[in-house]
């Protein structure tokens, strides 16, 4: 009987932080914005208050277990855009924690994106958009991506897009290219006013970029 009471008590004690949310429990909010209302704090990590709009759940889980570098120059917050030196690796979680964290992150949404198609592009269209990615719009100046030979190339001031097709939701990518202000008030990426057809093809092009295609 005594053990039972202890067990019950322990259960109560441990369930308290769990109710507060595992993100809070793990202190993710010390570096990441988790709440829409929080517009004042300057965070040292990327916004996660719309994680449910942005990420693919499977990628999220894998990232939390085995983090990869997405911003080769670090998450830059200073206005002069000085690269961070000595980047510490992102904390990794156990599979169990990662599952719980990913589930909670996927629940953080701030918009209902218009569903778009993420059907792969034909070879011809891919070549066309790749050309526009590099020349017409100069995306490659700031983003790493894969060239047709499967090599990583491009600038590092923006997040790497090498794994965009596994990492991001197509709807979100389209949203970002169309109305990035929905997600981030002040950005360093130029605004683009793409024709709807171009927007659609760019989204599908980015979704073809996957790290397993690195050669």
């Amino acid at each position, binding site marked *: 009987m005594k053990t039972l009471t202890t067990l019950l008590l322990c259960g109560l004690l441990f369930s308290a932080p769990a109710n507060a949310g595992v993100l809070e429990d793990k202190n993710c909010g010390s570096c990441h914005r988790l709440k829409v209302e929080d517009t004042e704090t300057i965070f040292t990590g990327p916004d996660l208050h719309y994680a449910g709009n942005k990420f693919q759940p499977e990628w999220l889980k894998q990232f939390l277990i085995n983090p990869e570098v997405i911003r080769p*120059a670090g998450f830059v917050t200073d*206005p*002069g*855009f*000085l*690269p961070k030196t000595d980047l510490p690796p992102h904390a990794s979680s156990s599979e169990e924690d990662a599952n719980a964290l990913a589930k909670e992150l996927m629940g953080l949404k701030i918009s209902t994106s218009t569903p778009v198609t993420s059907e792969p592009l034909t070879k011809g269209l891919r070549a066309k958009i790749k*050309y526009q990615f*590099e*020349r*017409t*719009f*100069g995306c*490659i*100046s*700031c983003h790493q*991506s894969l*060239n047709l030979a499967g*090599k990583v*190339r*491009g*600038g*590092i*001031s923006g997040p790497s897009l090498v794994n965009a097709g596994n990492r991001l939701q197509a709807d979100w990518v389209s949203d970002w290219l169309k109305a990035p202000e929905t997600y981030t008030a002040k950005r*360093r990426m*130029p*605004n*683009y*006013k793409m024709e709807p057809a171009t927007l659609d093809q760019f989204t599908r092009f980015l979704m073809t970029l996957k790290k397993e295609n690195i050669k």
Partner: protein
Amino acid sequence: MIINYKLLLTGIVYLAILVTACGQNEQATPAVKPPTQQKAGEVIPQMPQLKPIQVTEDTRQTYQWYCSQCHGVKGKGDGINAKFLTVPPRNHTKAEYLETRTDEQLFEAIKFGGLSVGRAPCMPAWGQTLAEDTIHSLVRYIRELCDCEAF
């Protein structure tokens, strides 16, 4: 309209060289030095009269926030993207080159991107992001950085 064939040819050759675009890779062409002999005012037809524009704290901050990604904090062309680009970002402190470019050419390069003035596409267009007045003030700021005016 009089066509300057020599200029036209230089332009065509230059564009042809640039076909490999911006991301550095093994096969990339070596960085091309753009022609600097162009006489100011020859190619750009009439531009609306420029208003006198001041460089303010806002101008500097705008430059720091957007342009320093490539052009560097001090405008020396050494931003964090610089070493990944096939054509290096222009060094905005270099008077010898910037003297050969008119304010209108600089304005167009910023608003419509490098390609619009026969320069590399690695220089993106900022016309959808920055107001015209801001772009004019950035031109003035670049003139401050190079401590030079167009010939």
